[in-house]
Each structure stands twice: as C-alpha cells, then as structure tokens.
C-alpha cells in the first residue's frame, strides 16, 4: 500500500502529461465533426457535421491534388534517400579508408548548416534549371543527408565482414553483395530510415512553400496553411483539413513507433 502511495504523484504527473499531449489531437478530431461555431464554443463531443465539412472542404480546395503531391514528394524522397544514403553508408564502412573517414567528417559538417543559409541559392539554382514547381526540386535537397548516411554507416558496423569475404569468394559482385545480402539483413535500419524520412518529407513546409509557386502544385501542409489566410475561417473545415493532413503520418507513427524512435536516435548510438 505504501509503495502504491509513493507512486501516486508519478502517475498524476504522467496523466497530466498524457492528457496535455493528446488533448489538442482529440480537439482536432472532434472539431472535424463539428460546425465552426461548435468548434469555437469548445464543444468537446463528436458532432454531426462531418459530411458537411467534407463537402465544404472539397468544394473549397483541391484536396485530392494536394494529397497526391504530398504523397509523390514524400515517397520519392524516401525511396531516393534510402538508396543513396544506404549505399553511401555501406561504402564508408565496408570499404573503409582514412581518406573516406576524412570525407565523412566533412559531410557531417553539413548537419550544422541551417537550411535558411542555403535556401536562396538553392532556389536560384533550381529556377535557372527551370525546375520551379517540379517534384525533383522539392525532393532533391532531402535525398542525401549526413544524418541518414551516418545512420547506415553505424548499422553497417554490425554487418559481419566474413559475410562479405565469403560472398566475394563465391564470385558475387560488390553491388550484388550490397543488394542481396546487406539490404535484407538491415531491414530494421531501412524501416527506421524510411519512417523518419517519410514523415519529415510529408510534413515539410518551408522549402515546398519556396519552390512550389504555383497553387496547382501545392502540398497538403501548404493547403491547410492557406485555409486560414482567408477573411472568415470555417474552423470545422479547418480541423478536418488538418486531420487529413496528419492522418498518414499519425498512422505511420502509431504502427511503426519503435522504428521512428530508432530512426531519430539511431545515428548517435
């Protein structure tokens, strides 16, 4: 009994933290089913206005196109980033040399460059290539990141060198060793890298906002951001749009939470 009492303050604290963490999301979900007035009068129960909100939102905005753009951008970024960074991380570790260490240290410096400091030249570079409003311009800056290279280099440490040697003796090419042996063995690292890259790409706002000038090319975060730019905001519709924008990343998070945690902390272990 005394032990239970001793734990009481902790549970109270954790309950407060959990409620505070979940409440804005609950408010968003409930708000999506309520009228604008009900959202503002703080109705905390589900309402009957969901279908009206859906109709209004889709009449007002091209949600399908924004979802499509977000999906294409996020999936393309994830696939390319995984290919480019995993092969580089593998290269740094398995074909290790002092010169490569040196290159890796230089690449790590790029982690300290704020995006703000490269945004303007990047825009000019892509504009002169005629890539404004294009998927490639949104995707390219996020394909090769020191963080992901580091993550894959760290996990390559646990890749037994004997396997590489044996495969070489069997006559497998270096690319085949990577593709047929390394990739299947490192599935959990790939999952972690995919989750963090996908979520970051789906949620990215500043760079798409800079490079996607045409409203026709806008992504989901841009769409919801533009919803409040009008004179009168319909809060029910806004909450619904925010919910739709969050849904993919929330699902990914809830299903692959462990991979996400491993992804953000993996490179520093």
């Amino acid at each position: 009994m005394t032990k239970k009492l001793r734990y009481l303050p902790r549970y109270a604290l954790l309950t407060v933290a959990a409620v505070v963490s979940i409440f804005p999301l609950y408010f968003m979900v409930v708000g999506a089913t309520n009228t604008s007035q009900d959202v503002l009068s703080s109705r905390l129960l589900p309402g009957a206005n969901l279908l009206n909100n859906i109709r209004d939102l889709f009449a007002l905005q091209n949600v399908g196109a924004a979802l499509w753009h977000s999906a294409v951008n996020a999936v393309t970024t994830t696939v390319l980033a995984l290919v480019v960074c995993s092969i580089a991380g593998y290269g740094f570790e398995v074909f290790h040399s002092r010169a490569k260490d040196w290159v890796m240290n230089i690449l790590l410096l790029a982690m300290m460059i704020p995006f703000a400091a490269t945004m303007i030249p990047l825009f000019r570079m892509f504009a002169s290539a005629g890539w404004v409003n294009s998927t490639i311009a949104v995707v390219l800056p996020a394909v090769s990141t020191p963080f992901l290279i580091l993550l894959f280099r760290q996990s390559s440490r646990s890749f037994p060198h004997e396997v590489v040697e044996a495969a070489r003796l069997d006559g497998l090419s270096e690319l085949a060793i990577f593709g047929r042996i390394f990739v299947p063995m490192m599935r959990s690292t790939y999952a972690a890298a995919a989750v963090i890259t996908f979520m970051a790409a789906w949620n990215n706002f500043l760079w798409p906002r800079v490079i996607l000038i045409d409203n026709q090319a806008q992504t989901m975060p841009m769409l919801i951001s533009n919803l409040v730019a009008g004179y009168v905001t319909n809060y029910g519709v806004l909450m619904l749009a925010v919910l739709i924008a969050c849904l993919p990343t929330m699902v990914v998070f809830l299903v692959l939470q462990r991979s996400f945690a491993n992804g953000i902390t993996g490179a520093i272990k």
Partner: protein
Amino acid sequence: MSTIAPTKPNPTDPPTSSTPPGRREPRRRSVATPPGDSRHRTRRSTVLGLERRHSLTGWAFLIPAAALIAILNFWPMIEAFILSLETGKGARLHLSEPLWLNYTRLFNDDLFRLTLGNTLIYLVVQVPIMLVLALILAMLLNDPHLRFKSFWRTAIFLPCAVSLVSYSLVFRTLFANDGFVNDTLMGLHLINEPIQCLANTGTARVVIILGLLWRWTGYNMVFYLAALQNLDYSTFEAARIDGAGPVKTFFHVAIPQLKPMIVLTAIMSTNGTLQLFDESWNLTAGGPANTTMSMSHYLYNLAFFNNPNVGYASALSYAILILVAILALIQMKVADRRD
C-alpha cells in the same frame, strides 16, 4: 563512431612475396580486420589489385551522396556568402560598395533586431524548460516498476507525428479569442473577459513557446530514454538505498551520466529554434506588429515577398548560420568544462 580500428599495419607482418614493400599501401585496410591479423593481406596473390579495386568500388558507392551534399549544401552555402556581398534588385546584382554594406545595414535594421530578439527569447525560455521536462519524464518512464509504460510513452511521444503546420493551426484555434482556452478560463472564473492571446505580444510569445513545448518535449524524451537504457538502472537504486531523494538522484546521478545526450539535444534544439519558421508563419503570422516573427520568417519575407532583396536576405541567412555555429561551439565548450 568509436570502434575504428588502428589503421597502421602491424610491424610484425612478414612482407609478402607478391607485394613489393615499397608499393604497399599501409593506410588502406579491410574493415573488421583486427590489428595483427595479416590473413587478408598474406593469403591472396593479387592483394594490391583487389584492394585498389575495392577502394574504387567504395568511392563509387559513396560519391552520389557526397556529390549531392556538396552541390546542395556546401556550394549554396558559399554562394549565399557571395550573394550577401551583393546588392541590387531582381536579377541585376552587383558587388556592393563597401562589400560589407548588407551586414552594416543588418545591424541597424530594427526589424532584424526584433526578430533576433524574438528568436532568442524562444530559445532561452523554451529550450531549458523543454529539456528539463523531457529529462523528468524520461526518468519516470525508465522506472522498471512503472505500469502502462508503453501507453505513457506513446501518448507523450505522439505530438511528433503531427506536422508543425498542423499543430500550429490547432493551437491557433485553441487560443482564438472565443476559443477553448478562453472559454475554459472564463468557465473557471479565472478571468472575466477573453484574453486576446494572439493579439498581445506577451501572450502570443507564450503561445508559441507552449506550442514548441508541446511538440518537442516527447521527441527529446525519446533521446533520454535511449540514453537511460544504456545506463545501469542499479546506479539509481543504489542512490535511493543510500538515502538520496528523487531531486538529489536527478542532479547527482542522472544528469552527470546523461551529459553527452543533454549536450546533443541542446545543440539540436538550439539549431531548430534558430530556424523556427512554421509556427511563426501559421500560429501568429508574425504578429502582433512582428513581435513574434522569427528570423527565418523575416528571411522568407525578404527573399521571396514583394520586392525581394536577395543580397540583403543572404546577409541575414549568414547571421543565422553564424549564430548556429557560435551557439553550438559554446555548448560544446560548456560541456567540456564541467568535467
């Protein structure tokens, strides 16, 4: 990062007949070859050719990634510096006279000073509170006797699944004049009339800080949890048996052991806060009267709004870059000194 084996060849290696000593490349090694193990070098007859080929393959593997980082990170960084020395409208840019014109202008720009101040306020107030909260929560969750652990962790970590734009808009709705927060405070008779949270400088800044705390505390908690899992829980038990209360345990057992992780999260949070954009744009739109506008928000306006001034905006972007570098160096130095 710490498992790099010595790269020098073992002096006791017998010179192999097929490899002329002068042509050996002692710096190259195969990974996972323990020092002293000369098996890989001695057994093959064409060691040099193979090793050189492997080395080239290695370079081929990492060159796409390295080239992308060089072209899309380092080169733009250099170009931004060159741009920051230029002036002019639109595409007709020329070197400014004197060269540091944009920088002198920056130091006399009231709006730059205001956005710098805003960003530093967020940094100084929000980051310490967040890191302490994250540490406390991580300590609570690290207790093996705690029940429903995965529920608590998922709940507190959940805000990370939400994009910055999304939570900014939800917070904007919650803190609206006739929104939930005002309704609740009035319902509890704590206030008599609604506070215009987003229309007053002080409260608008508090809302941004609350938003940042909500979004990032769980994120940092996960880093501390990962670090705590690598520590021996018995050190905490021992402290308790020795009569140390939770506060003493926290300061004298947890913090010293977690120091590297605390420094890392502090640097990441500083880096992130200095680049704050989404919240400033969506939650308060920089208002009222630009008193919640972040540096990145101002940079965006300078570079891409109305009359873009690319040279001047680049000077501002360099101010952010230098701040990030200086603060990271200071944090690393402070961490060193406490040893």
